[in-house]
């Protein structure tokens, strides 16, 4: 579904990614873990067009998307729940969800039944249902995370990219988030999950990649990585090992 080959990217003079390759097969949940500053969010941004990669290739369902604009990539069916949620704070919950389906309104994606999808999304995220007309800016961190994920689902996407969904959330909300991710997985949704909470991520994923200083240090089936001592070290260790 999503294929990344030798991706290099950075910000101005600072090169963050030094050639990484990741493969996300259809129907699977792949996780990208690593400590702060390893380059996880940079990877997400480079895939979704928020920054332009300096080298390498990204293909979505066979189509080349590296170098494309965010909106083009979204219209091809890639939904992104970004780091920091980035919900539209001055708009209501339901408006946020409707905007998630924007390409369906304009015809870039198959229309389907947007209204009933909206109701289904609210069923899947009960906290949002109670607050459907509330301004997104007044929601708590956890609720905003739910909203960002529901918004991504509204696209009826080919793949969802989740960037640090657990960040800044209390443990009980983290559990809820991962329950929802599990739920989506059981519905066959393809996902690329970037996480700081390695344990939870590896629990729900099929396969994992460990990012260290802009390079893939190790990768393998999630169950194998869970027992790997090097993974734990990469976490609280940072560089220099």
């Amino acid at each position, binding site marked *: 579904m999503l294929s990344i080959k030798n991706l290099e990217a950075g910000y101005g*003079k600072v090169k963050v990614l030094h050639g990484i390759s990741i493969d996300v097969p259809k129907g699977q949940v792949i996780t990208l873990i690593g*400590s702060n*500053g390893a380059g996880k969010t940079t990877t997400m941004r480079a895939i979704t067009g928020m920054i332009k990669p300096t080298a390498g290739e990204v293909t979505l369902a066979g189509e080349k998307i590296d170098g494309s604009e965010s909106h083009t990539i979204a219209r091809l069916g890639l939904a992104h729940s970004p780091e920091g949620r980035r919900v539209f704070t001055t708009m209501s919950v339901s408006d946020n969800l409707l905007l998630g389906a924007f390409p369906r309104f304009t015809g870039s994606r198959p229309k389907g039944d947007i209204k009933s999808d909206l109701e289904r999304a609210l069923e899947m995220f009960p906290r949002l249902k109670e607050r459907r007309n509330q301004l997104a800016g007044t929601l708590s961190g956890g609720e905003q995370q739910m909203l960002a994920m529901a918004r991504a689902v509204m696209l009826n996407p080919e793949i969802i990219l989740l960037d640090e969904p*657990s960040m800044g959330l209390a443990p009980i909300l983290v559990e809820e988030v991962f329950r929802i991710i599990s739920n989506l997985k059981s519905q066959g949704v393809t996902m690329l999950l970037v996480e700081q*909470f390695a*344990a*939870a991520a590896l629990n729900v994923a099929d396969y994992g990649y460990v990012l260290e200083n802009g390079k893939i240090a190790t990768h393998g089936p999630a169950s194998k990585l869970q027992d790997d001592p090097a993974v734990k070290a990469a*976490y609280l260790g*940072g*560089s220099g090992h």
Partner: protein
Amino acid sequence: MKLKAQLPLLVAIVALFCLPLLIQNPYYIHLAETILIYTILLFGLDIVVGYVGQVSLGHAGLFGIGSYTAGVLFFHMGWPIWATIPASIVVTAIFGGILALPALKVVGPYLAMVTLAFGTIAQILINEMTWLTEGPLGIKLTRPELMGVPMDKAEYFWLVAGVMILALIAIDRFVKSQMGRAFEALRDSPVACDCMGVSVYRFKVIAFVISAGFAGLAGCLYAYSEQYISPNTYNNELAVLFLLGIIMGGRKSRLGAAIGAAIIVLLPKLLDDINLFRIVASVIAVVVAIGAVMALSKKVTTPRRVAIPLAGVVGLAAFSFWLDNISDWRLSIFGFMILLVVYYLQNGIVGFAKSFYQSIAGKTKTTRGDAVEVADDSVSFISTVANQNTGAELLKVDSVLMQFGGLKALNNVSLSIKRGTIHGLIGPNGSGKSTMMNVLTGIYVPTAGNVLYAGNSVVGKTSSDIALSGIARTFQNVQLFGEMTALQNIMVGLHHTFKSNILDIALHLPRYTKEEQEARARAMALLKFVGLDDLANEEARNLPYGKQRLLEIARALALDPELLLLDEPAAGLTAPDIKELLRIIRKIRDSGITFILIEHHMDVVMSVCDTVSVLDFGQKIAEGKPAEVQADEKVIHAYLGA
């Protein structure tokens, strides 16, 4: 400046003074006079536009205030020119200060609007206050008298030329002094400027005041030159014309100001004569075409990039042949010239000429400034901290709460930083570490709680005052003064060592020259300490990332701090860079400076910190020696997860 470099300037000055002797036609002398007067104004405008980097549409208004001060004092009180010149400068400077007040907190388009409003009000007031200014009737002035006899055309020209030379020297000295550096720092990073002890508010006012002074001087000379002033001259169109002049001539350049002044004076005259305009337009089109061909053949540009400017000048020449009268289209031509300059000539004619020459001649010159000095090892770059009472409490953070709306970025956090130690502050993203830095340096005012530095509360103090009292910092996203050289960046940090004022600078009095010299030596020593002395004249934005971070540390040291706050100094650094960083940190600590260090790189934290505090969700969850903290269950949980 060496004599060789000064030679062309001296020749130009001599030629200038010979002008009225060689050309007898008073019309041309008057034109040259107007160019000189506008040059003085553009010197002043350049401070705001070139150095502080803002758009000012108010300088026609200031120009008018200068002219009318002279006019009113002449008309109502019969003052001679020797009195009206200083009066015009002072009065206009005061108005410049008034203009600066609403402009203090704003930048960009808001600042431009403030200046536009000011200029509009100035013109309205001049027009309406007829009891003072005679309103639309205007004021007539007679030639100033020299020893009882009115000056003739040549004598007044020499006066104007002389004043212009003095203005040139003054402005050159201002912009090369600590004042000019403060203006540029203001432009490049207001936050860093404040945190280096250079108050943004204060220097904005100073910039506008000095700029207005020059405008007032120009206005006064203009009044006597035209011998008649009326309100409708000082309109918004003139203000835009001044902007066009300085941008087209070249910002941050005296020659640019002169070229710009010449363009805005001569261009309308050129446009009045359609035949002359046709000739000039055709010549320009041919020159640009030749230049484009040369540049293309040397492969320094692409066809796409030359297409539009080339089409523009050729189109202009064609347009001029089609019309009978081009002076009606004067303003459109100015408008197109602004568009051209904004997109294709960002550095003005002077800048363009420089880079064109360099690309053709094959030189690459990325450095600026005078010759590099060799660092003198005997100059101590770090003043050893007076109070070496290691272990005593230097900074106390007392139950600080920092709330943004509903979000508690810092929730009841207390810290005790001991003198002479390196205190680490770690935690996951969003835990409040940078927020703490910003509270300590006065960028945020805490919602509750107190911060005591050496026993005194710093809550509510400005960042600039806090910096000057001994707390220096670096930033997570490097906040260097990008367009200034490495050396100049450090010199801004040394601003606090300068006690000299405008007069000292203008006259190059010993107090100023001594301070400047000492500051340079100290700055070079600091550069050498961080290993950047060979890059002293390199623009900060061109330095490699790792070196930029070291430069920021050196700049912070220039403040002679007791407490140094480093925000993720190792971020993005390679392993050898990190080793160098640690060496530098230890050396600084040895001279008695206390550190607070935010870091994610655990090996840095482990190897250099004496104590570590851990934040999570805005609260302190652990504190102690690095090894203890690393093994702490709560800390592992916060970083790793369940």
